[in-house]
């Protein structure tokens, strides 16, 4: 059983779009604004923040961690969603994550993927 996505180092930064300006890495706001209408983007952002707050009890926003719980920042969004989806289908082990993923809709997984995907590891 593996806890983290293979090949992802703790401090590796992943960029969702090559065109996205580097300066917006710390929040997902600009990414949303580029892609969607303001009201919709803000709503997604607010939802992502709310859902993400549940994650940060275990997954540090800084990307730091002792190894027992993997960092979830800076992942490519497709992989992030796929991981959560796999937990939801009980294809990945870990009863805690299975329970959490079971109550996330696809839209919610996508919102979380964008939110965390935009974060950069802090030294």
């Amino acid at each position, binding site marked *: 059983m593996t806890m983290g996505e293979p090949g992802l180092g703790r401090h590796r930064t992943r960029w969702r779009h090559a065109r996205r300006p580097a300066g917006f890495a710390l929040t997902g706001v600009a990414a949303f604004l580029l892609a969607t209408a303001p009201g919709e983007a803000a709503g997604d952002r607010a939802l992502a923040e709310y859902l993400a707050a549940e994650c940060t009890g275990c997954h540090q926003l800084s990307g730091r961690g002792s190894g*027992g719980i993997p960092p979830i920042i800076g992942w490519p969004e497709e992989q992030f969603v796929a991981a959560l989806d796999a937990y939801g289908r009980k294809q990945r082990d870990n009863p805690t994550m299975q329970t959490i993923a079971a109550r996330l809709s696809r839209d919610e997984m996508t919102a979380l993927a964008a939110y965390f995907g935009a974060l950069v590891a802090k030294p």
Partner: protein
Amino acid sequence: MKPTRRDWMAGTSAVLAAGTLAAPAVLGQAKPRVVVVGGGPGGATAAKYLAKDSAGAIAVTLVEENETYQTCFHSNLFIGGFKRYEEIVHRYDALASTHGIALVRSRATQIDRDRKEVVLSDGRRLPYDRLVLSPGIDLNYDSVPGWSKEAEEAMPHGWKPGRQTQLIREKLDAVPDGGTIVMIAPPNPYRCPPGPYERASMFAHVLQQSGRNKARIVILDPKESFSKQGVFMPDWEKRYSAMIEWLGPKVHDGITSVDPRTGTVVTGFETYENCAFVNVIPAQMAGAIARDAGLAPAGGYCAIDPATMKSVVDGDIVVLGDACNAGDMPKSAFSANNQAKVAAMVLRGELVGAQTFPARYLNTCWSLVDTDDAIKVGGRYEPKDGRIAAVETFISQPGESAEIRRQTQAENIAWYDAICADMFT
């Protein structure tokens, strides 16, 4: 207190995000004020998320009498020799420096609900628009005959942090080989359901590690069963053979009395004399400040609205963590931290027009049984029929592989670092 600075710019991003015009922040009036009482996983988390997610549009004050916070969670790991004491102590400075929270180091003694003010022990009064109460528990010193506040040095509880935590370790270290430890476990509902049994595991671990293999631990429980019992007990057998003995009420027939002077525990079944160490974990209730404010009309813990964490008695007050009745959610640090985020969202919605979402809750409790051998229990919860109800739960299984138990402990360690970062940075 102070907030007359007219800074509606700070509220603008929150306002634009919500797409509505929120009252005080936009009209240039003083910022809405939230006072948070209690700097534990409920209070510290609530203060941080209120400040952080409102981008400074809410004036947040955190009242906490202790300069540092020693976590009760993982205090058992300190007792078991797996963590140094310094590793479970944390500072509040970053909440002020990073999030602009006003830290008031004082004891809050009373809530004046009519005037909407928190009264401090030095007489200062802090006005609030909304109050977050996260005062933790108080111990019922009358719940074990013969035990009292005066007896808590001779027979410590170790159920509140600081001196008591260290006293438990001191008493453990002084147990001679062949000595008896009696633990009196608490009745439901209480802080940290698996805690007493993790602690007994830590006692056994330390005794075994130090070669005191003839010492024994007797747990006298007022409960018919306990959290993760089906997983703890086979593991005790495997790790510690017969060192830990658990007796339910039908066997011991009730605690008749304890004598702190002689270290005696009398039950309906047996008398334990000259105990090397008696750990009394008494019945518990919400912290006095919450009960005195009339927020726990039924006596024990504060009734809350499961969708908002607000007191059912007073809509301007949120009660978090161990002090509230959270339905199926256990009294745990994880729960308090989780509830705090729901409450922060609700209050931001009311005060600065932030967008809100239906409450959902989560908990996981990890317990260390022996080196690289931890077990967990948890679930997700939602408001249902007027209470917070479990939707789905999970629990470690007896007979799991050593690798799973090792991984569970690695999770436990990582969770602690994450929740402390979440609370204090």
